[in-house]
């Protein structure tokens, strides 16, 4: 019952947020700022994690499937599939839910408890629209970039393993695996997923932040709750989207 009510409130808030901005110039200015804050600032962590996970996946597969029956190039193939299909979108977004989601929830939550949102409302500004839409647009526009970076550097991570030790996998085999049975659609699929996840992360975080009541403690709680909730939703939608897009 409570969940249903929350979902109703969430839907109303997001509908209120998606409206024509009061001032387009202000909207673009805010969106630009948010792209920087939510997107560009996440580039390093995405690259860092992707390189390591790409390397680790390759090593794990190689070490665990170490039998002459399986040709070495399949390790490259499997690494590619994992990175393109799931890692660059789902896992990356789970990580970003922690970084970006908590950032959005705590920023909007702080504005709520310090009456900054009331201040916008009394000026006659649609506060939901002014605060939430630039964040949602910015994150959804920038997430494909993060997703592609993640794919690229994940693959690079696998290469590094080949460079370091050709016992684990040779570069030639890795490359052969990368090219094997490659459908460019997997990239499209992954990007579509990440855009949906970006919507989930930014809108849920905004909802939790916007509805904070109380003080700093509640802001912290809201930000934690938003991360938990968006992670659950990301995994749920991962299942749904995989069913819709790949079968």
């Amino acid at each position, binding site marked *: 019952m409570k969940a249903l009510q929350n979902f109703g409130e969430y839907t109303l808030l997001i509908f209120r947020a998606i409206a024509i901005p009061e*001032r387009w110039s202000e909207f673009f200015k805010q969106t630009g700022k948010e792209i920087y804050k939510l997107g560009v600032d996440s580039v390093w962590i995405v690259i860092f994690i992707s390189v390591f996970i790409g390397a680790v996946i390759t090593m794990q597969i190689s070490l665990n499937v170490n039998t002459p029956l399986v040709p070495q190039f399949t390790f490259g193939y499997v690494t590619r599939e994992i990175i393109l299909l799931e890692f660059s979108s789902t896992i990356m977004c789970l990580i970003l839910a922690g970084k970006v989601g908590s950032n959005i929830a705590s920023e909007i939550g702080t*504005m709520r408890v*310090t009456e900054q949102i009331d*201040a916008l409302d*009394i000026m006659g500004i649609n506060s939901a629209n002014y605060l939430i839409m630039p964040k949602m647009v910015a994150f959804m526009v920038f997430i494909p970039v993060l997703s592609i970076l993640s794919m690229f550097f994940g693959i690079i991570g696998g290469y590094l393993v080949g460079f370091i030790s050709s016992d684990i996998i040779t570069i030639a085999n890795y490359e052969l695996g990368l090219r094997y049975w490659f459908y460019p659609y997997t990239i499209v699929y992954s990007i579509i997923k990440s855009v949906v996840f970006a919507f989930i992360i930014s809108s849920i975080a905004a909802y939790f932040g916007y509805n904070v009541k109380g003080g700093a403690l509640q802001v912290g709680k809201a930000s934690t709750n938003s991360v938990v909730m968006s992670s659950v939703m990301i995994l749920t939608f991962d299942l749904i989207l995989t069913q819709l897009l790949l079968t």
Partner: protein
Amino acid sequence: MIEVKHLIKSFDDKVVLKDISTIFEPGITNLIIGRSGSGKTVLMKNLIGLMQPDSGEIRYNGRNIIAMKKNELKLLRREMGMLFQGSALFDSMTVLENVMFPLTMFTKDSYKERCKRAMFCLERVNLKGAENLYPAEISGGMMKRSGIARAIALNPKYLFCDEPNSGLDPKTALLIDDLVSDITKEYKMTTVINTHDMNSVMNIGEKIIFINQGRKAWEGTKDEIMNVNNKALNDFVFASDLFRKVKETENLAEQEG
């Protein structure tokens, strides 16, 4: 002029405002006083339309805010300015940008004109020189001043202040009171102020409404407030030793004279 008629507001089954009627006049400072939890903030939030009352009317020069459509309300909001208890300045903007913000959103003026107007408002509240600082870098008193400057940027007809001097030292508090009072007179604004500070009551209380447990228990001016026969009001007024002593001295003087 703002007229309030038979205002009732409850949360769930708790009635917070019980049938409040009064009039807030233009050009004077209207004070809403009462103990903590008496319903002052709730009354103000109803006045400005951030909360919907259960029943009653709130008329801005005859226009009932409760029955207003979204667009009408939006236009009326352009005529309102509000100073929040914690100032509610936007953290991500400098003082100048904060004051310019309403102008940016609602006027078609050029950057230069907006800047000029914002600087004028900042000067009016004696804040010249702080325009490029962020809210985190200025003192509480300066934040209140910036909040006032932002509230008056669009030349509002109605000014609302929720506890304008809470958290300030007595001297700064009086300065802020005087500033609000001066601006009210200068621009003939209808100003409504929430306070529980007896100092401000005696300083700028041209019209005072005393709220006790959600009811309007008394209405009058600062000249009358010391000599009212009302238990709740007396408890409020003479809660501080200072005002009790003032009253005793007055009584003594009367007896002797």
